[in-house]
C-alpha cells in the first residue's frame, strides 16, 4: 500500500545526500562514495517505476547501471591509486595542477 511518490521522495533524499557529499567532502574516496550513493538513489526510482508500470525493462536498466557502476568503481579507484602515487595526498584541494 505504499504510494509511488514515497519511493520517489526516498530516492530523491538519497540523491540529495549524494550531491551534498560530493560538494562538501574533501577526501577523494568519500567523494567517489557519494557518487555511488547518487547511483543507488536513481536505481531505487528505476525499480519503483518498473513496479508501477509493470515494465520489466526498468529492472534490466538497473542491471546495466550496476554493471557500469562496477566498471566505474574499478577504473576510478585505479585513478585514485595513481593520483596518490604522484601527489602523495587524497585531499582534492591539493590536487590542483590544472588550476590557473
Amino acid at each position: 500500500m505504499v504510494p509511488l511518490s514515497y519511493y520517489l521522495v526516498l530516492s530523491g533524499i538519497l540523491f540529495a545526500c549524494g550531491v551534498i557529499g560530493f560538494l562538501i567532502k574533501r577526501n577523494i574516496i568519500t567523494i567517489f562514495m557519494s557518487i555511488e550513493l547518487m547511483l543507488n538513489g536513481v536505481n531505487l526510482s528505476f525499480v519503483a517505476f518498473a513496479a508501477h508500470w509493470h515494465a520489466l525493462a526498468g529492472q534490466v536498466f538497473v542491471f546495466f547501471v550496476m554493471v557500469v557502476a562496477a566498471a566505474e568503481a574499478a577504473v576510478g579507484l585505479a585513478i585514485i591509486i595513481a593520483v596518490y602515487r604522484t601527489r602523495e595526498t587524497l585531499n582534492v584541494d591539493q590536487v590542483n595542477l590544472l588550476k590557473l
Partner: protein
Amino acid sequence: MLSVHLILFLAFGAVAVAGAVNLLAQTHPINSALSLIAVMAALAGEYLLLGAEFVAAVQVIVYAGAVMVLFVFVIMLLNAGVEEHTKGSRVALLIGIPGTLIGSILVAWAFLQHSGTEAVAVGVMPGRTSGWGDPAVIGQLLFHEFLLPFEVTSILILIAIMGAVVLASRPPTSPVARSARGVD
C-alpha cells in the same frame, strides 16, 4: 491504516536515510564506507518490497559485496586518514547544504502534490502476476530484447579491467614512477 508494507518501507527507508546522513557526518572514510554498506543493504530490502528479487540479490552481491570491498581495500591500501577542511570546502559547505536541501524539498513537494499517484499503490496493482520479478523472466528479456546492450556492457567491463590494471600498475621506466620510488 498502517499496513505491514508501509511499516517495512518506512523502516528500510529510515535505515537508508540514516546511513546516507552518517556518510556525510563521518570524517574518516572507513566509517563512510560502512554507512554506505548499510544504505545498500536497506535498499536491497526496498527492492524486495517492490517485488524485484533479482535486483535485490544483485544489489547485495555486486554493490554491498564486490564494489564496497574494493572501496575498503583501497582505503586500507592508501592508509586514508581523517580529512582536513580548507577555506574553499567551508564555502561549499555553506552554499551546498542549503541549496541542495531547498532543491530536494521542492522536488519532494512537487512529487507529493502533483503526481496524483496517491491512489495507485505500488505492489497492489490488480493486473500483477506472481512471477513478475522472476530471474527467468529478466533473463529472457536480457538475452533477447537487450542482447546488444548486454554484449556492449561486457566489452565495457573488459576495457575497464584492462584500464584498471594499466592505471594501477607502476610503469617501471617512466620518470614519475622513478621519483615516486625515490620518495618511498
